């Protein structure tokens, strides 16, 4: 079994406008636009499920404040947490 990806991305279908910038920007090319239309009538982006490195580039490329959430594999214990990380509870 392959080791799990270092990161993962969730994309809120209610916020994505289907501009496609994240798909273009993603270095490991692990995002793509859905073929189906969302309720809003756009092709929202989604994560293919593997290869995400958790780099956050898609987050900074996406114009919507909360459409993309990026996760990273929990660092080994004792790692220093930044302010942002401290705020965000671990993913459920």
């Amino acid at each position: 079994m392959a080791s799990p990806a270092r990161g993962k991305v969730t994309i809120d279908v209610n916020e994505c406008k289907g501009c496609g910038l994240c798909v273009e920007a993603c270095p490991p090319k692990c995002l793509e636009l859905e073929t189906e239309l969302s309720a809003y009538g756009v092709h929202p982006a989604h994560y293919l499920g593997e290869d995400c490195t958790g780099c956050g580039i898609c987050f900074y490329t996406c114009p919507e404040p909360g459409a993309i959430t990026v996760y990273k594999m929990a660092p080994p214990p004792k790692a220093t947490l930044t302010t942002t990380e401290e705020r965000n509870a671990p993913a459920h």
Partner: protein
Amino acid sequence: MSDYQVTHSKSQVFYDVFERKPELQHQTHYCPGCGHGVAHKLVAEAIEDMGLQDKTIFVSPVGCSVFAYYYFDTGNVQAAHGRTPAVATGLKRACPESIVIGYQGDGDLAAIGTAEILHAANRGEKIAIFFINNAIYGMTGGQMAPTTLVGQTSTTSPFGRRAGNEGYPLHVCELLATLEAPVYIERVALFDNKNTMRARKAVRKALELQKNGAGFTLVEILSPCPTIWKMDPIDARHWIEKNMLPVFPLGVFRDRPAPQLADNPVPHHTLTEALGLDTTEAETSEPKQASKAAGNNLTLKMAGFGGQGILLLGQIVAEMGMRAGLEVSWLPSYGPEMRSGSAHCHVCLAAERIGSPLISHPDVLIAMNEISLRKFAPQVKAGGLILYNRSELPEGFELPQARVVCVPASDIADQIGTAKVANTVMLGALMSETELLTEESAMSVVQSILGAKAKSASVLEMNRRALQAGRQFMHKAATPVQS
């Protein structure tokens, strides 16, 4: 899945829900692929990471980003078109501990707001301006902006901008970098990952400088407008690189500490000091007890036609309140005419700090003519008082909620010898109704205004008589006309 931790998510500086409209409350109103959203995120993230959320006042412009106040959970003010730097100046000077951010587009900043940005930068105001340049008017449908490229088509340059007719694109960073005062000016662009991260760094640097009170900062952000450029979002990013960068080179145009000024510090004077008024008498004769004694606040509206001394009456009352140790505000409203036309002012006397000088429902209305009475009487608080400058109410006038007293101030003033003291008669009438204001205080203020001119003695005397006449009238008219 619990092995994963969130590293990038919606900033807390954004509202959870965007309540601009009943629908789509999780989305901004920006088009797909718009640069504003990215710029918003960079600003929000920097505010959050620096812990500035509760100190930040965000000034929205006119343009697509006019609704930024629906998104940023900070202090928000929306300025008139182009006036963001002027509004930000006022906010920063009034609240020096705040971080004041002005967010402007190129139509707002570089066209109608050219004067404001130039002078705010030149004064070295301690504000952060984020200037979103997409070389076009977006919200209004794609008209030519000052930053539109030569040859670029727009609805108002359908054959392409011609330098000979419409001039050249305005280089705001370069222009402002000729000034002495700014501390940091940089141009960045949102067209690829590397440059977006550079923009992030520039935004953070600007806010860091604001946090340290360094001075004026401006970050110009070249930003895509896919809709108006009629491109898909990805092509729009390429278009920035290919077409905008040659005209708007990226880089730091200014990064240095604010000039060390040899100026004397700005003296802080009270209004009376600045105007050279004599306050010794007021200070000795009126220790600051009134604010305690008053406890309650008094809001007044005075209205009439220009020339009746309406605004002056308001100033006198405000000055009296100030000398009595109260918080005061005086807000005039008048037309361009020096005489005639309508004029009114709002005066607020309060023991606590005054939130707004605008008074929607005054305790007292002084109506110097019928038009003012009819216009403002319905606004008076229930149980309030109206002083009307006539011996009787106009026909058909009825007002159940407030007490109206007809004080024929103009007639009384004429009997005293000059129509000019009609406002003082009203002041006398007002003083008989409130303990906040005293006759000695009134005379001392009037004396300060008149100054030490030779002929002022007689005018002062007439004012004294007017004050007393107003008081006496109220005592005689103990039976209200209407209650």
